[in-house]
């Protein structure tokens, strides 16, 4: 198992995603002799996981069952331990496409945070690309590096514990793309420009507040970036439902035989297969600002 390559069978040391049902999942580190408690009972790693195929159904001690899934960055995003607010798949997908990431891309990112976007980037740039990620919080930087090693992607990433606004990304002239998710991205625009290849590249800044966006756009324009564009994306989920709608009873159009007879109420109803929106939805995550560094 690795986050950048599929494998068929579960092995010791793998991360597996236990799927319990409707939107309920949990990550598990597979180890000989270990056990995992779920609401359906106990899963014994040695017997139930190791050697099994990803995707199989596992019966737990209480008789209930779960599925064991191969990890993907998308599943990881939904199950990772939050050390900071994270980016979700909707934004990640657009960032990936708009930054033109692909195998071989060299990417600079700051801040690393909980590594949600990092895993998605690594998946996309493997096997020949590299991610330089900067995190100014020491424990978070260490935890991220540890996770990358555990997830078998350590060879594709370099974690640096420094302040990107003061010291940059630690590399110059190598990046095809730069991503900023920091409180003051305008302070890092110059460093982003330096980290990027001389022949050009793409940059993205993610900010929750419009004031941050304004300052960043100004900084990008001042540094000569082109194609500056700001957008936001939201995902709407449609819950598929079968609903029953009763039909009204307007009575019979024939005169009643005996006036005292009450018409027999009909219980006719119609079944509809449709979707309904959830009660709440994510209304805002952040604004995404993209730009192109022109070739010098």
């Amino acid at each position, binding site marked *: 198992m690795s986050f950048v390559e*599929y494998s068929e069978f579960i092995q010791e040391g793998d991360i597996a995603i236990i*799927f319990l049902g409707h*939107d309920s999942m949990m990550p598990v580190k597979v180890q000989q002799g270990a056990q995992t408690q779920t609401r359906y009972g106990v899963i014994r790693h040695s017997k139930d996981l190791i050697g099994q195929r990803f995707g199989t159904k596992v019966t737990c001690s209480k008789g209930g069952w779960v599925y064991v899934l191969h990890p993907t960055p998308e599943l990881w995003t939904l199950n990772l331990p939050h050390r900071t607010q994270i980016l979700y798949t909707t934004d*990640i997908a657009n960032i990936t496409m708009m930054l033109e990431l*692909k195998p071989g891309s060299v990417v600079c990112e700051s801040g690393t945070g909980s590594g949600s976007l990092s895993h998605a980037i690594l998946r996309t740039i*493997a096997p020949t690309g590299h991610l330089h990620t900067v995190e100014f919080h020491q424990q978070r930087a260490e935890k991220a590096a540890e996770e990358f090693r555990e997830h078998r992607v350590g060879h594709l990433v370099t974690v640096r514990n420094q302040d990107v606004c003061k010291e940059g990304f630690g590399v110059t002239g190598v990046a095809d793309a730069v991503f900023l998710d920091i409180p003051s991205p305008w302070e890092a625009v110059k460093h982003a420009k330096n980290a990027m290849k001389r022949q050009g590249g793409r940059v993205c800044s993610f900010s929750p507040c419009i004031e941050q966006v304004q300052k960043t756009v100004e900084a990008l324009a001042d540094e000569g970036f082109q194609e500056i564009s700001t957008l936001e994306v939201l995902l709407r989920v449609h819950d598929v439902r079968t609903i029953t709608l009763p039909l009204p009873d307007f009575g019979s159009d024939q005169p009643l035989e005996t006036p005292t007879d009450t018409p027999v109420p009909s219980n006719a109803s119609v079944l509809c297969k449709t979707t309904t929106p959830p009660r709440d939805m994510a209304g805002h995550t952040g604004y995404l600002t993209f730009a192109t560094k022109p070739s010098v």
Partner: protein
Amino acid sequence: MADNGDNDSQHRVNEGDYVVLKRGDIYKAVQIQKKKKTVFEKQWFFLDNAVGELYGTTFEVVTGGTLQPRKPKLVESSADAKEAGTDNRNILDDGKSQKLTRDDIETLKEQGLKGQEIVQQLIENSTTFRDKTEFAQEKYIKKKKKKYENSVMVLRPSCRVMAMMYHGREPGKICHLRYDTLAQMLTLGNIHAGSKVLVFETCAGLVLGAVMERMGGYGSVVQMYPGGGPVRAGMESFGFPSHFHDTLHEFPICHVNALLAGALDTEAKDIDADSGQANGDKSNLTQTGPEKAESKECSPDTKDQCMETSTSTDPAADKEREEREKLREIRGQERKVKMEEKRKKLAAAAAVLEGRNADGLVIASRFHPCPVLLGLIKFLAPSRPFVVYSQYKEPLIECYTKLKEQGGAVSLRLTDSWIRHYQVLPNRTHPMLLMSGGGGYLLSGTTVATDTPKMGSTRGEEPAAKRLKLTETTEG
């Protein structure tokens, strides 16, 4: 780590490259061919001067139809100390404020004035310009620049650029798939180097190209196609290096059932990959073969029967006949070689599919998605993602329902994506006035093993229907 001149070559435009021309929000995919006139935004020009320049360079179209690299833009001289008004209360929009006529402007154009200079002329000949507010002046200048500037940027094709181009120019060709929806598909499908991905699309090859870009030439892609042959125009415009094509297979869907039933005989010498006759029966396939192969020309074996009986003894006529025969033989051989190639390709694609261990499935077509999904999902290994695009919601509701019934998939989600662009300017920041109304719908999910028979009741992901009186709330 500084890059030197050697690295440059891969960043420079070469003859024969597929590129994308850009002006503002308008894109067009073209191939660089010297001395060939290209039309873009009502202008004709030659792309010759782009060769050797870096990708991302902006050019001016000068008189004569040639491109000239534009000097790097100096920081725009701020319009301070220029005259401006405070509001528009006294500005009359009577259409008479511009003193230059259309003919005047044409004359200026013919004289070879650059776009910037024409805009300057328009400003000087506008009676109301200095009464406008600074913001209004900026807006006016931007608008005129857009109209009279003739700059063209030459971009390297990428999924981003191609998806925006198709969506802006020919949405009908791509089933109105909006670029952010395509972005979701690539990510939800976990498309990455080294995997084996199945693609069924009728989006002019755009989706195929996007998938191949994310694969980087590693792994394999099988394009399932309806009808006579796979459509790849959009994919070709990505300009992938030739070795990418080695990872690409194609398989006609008319043979899917045969393959699933184990009845597809790809060894049969006469199999025609495009034959719509396949019905899963070995004998039938070999029978329909020879009939198709013959068509107009006679195959070398039957040459003797087709040949005209020679009656005349005219040596000239004889020679002519001999040449005709030779030609027929050559053409016959060529057809045999082609048929053999097709057969080999079909066999190769079938071999890739047979194992039923594909890592991903991407569907985006004008066909009803339900049968497509239910048919092709059988080729996926367990614990792998699939994503289905449809311009409409209802067909996906059907897919969702049927998949729930038959099992074998979890985390089913029907979604659509909402996107909004912003204008960001000091004191003038707001969402754009026009917004995309819709970008299509996606159904995504993950396969699971289907060996065990369904136990009792399904652990339904769909919450049980609530009683009418209660307000609807969803589970966890």
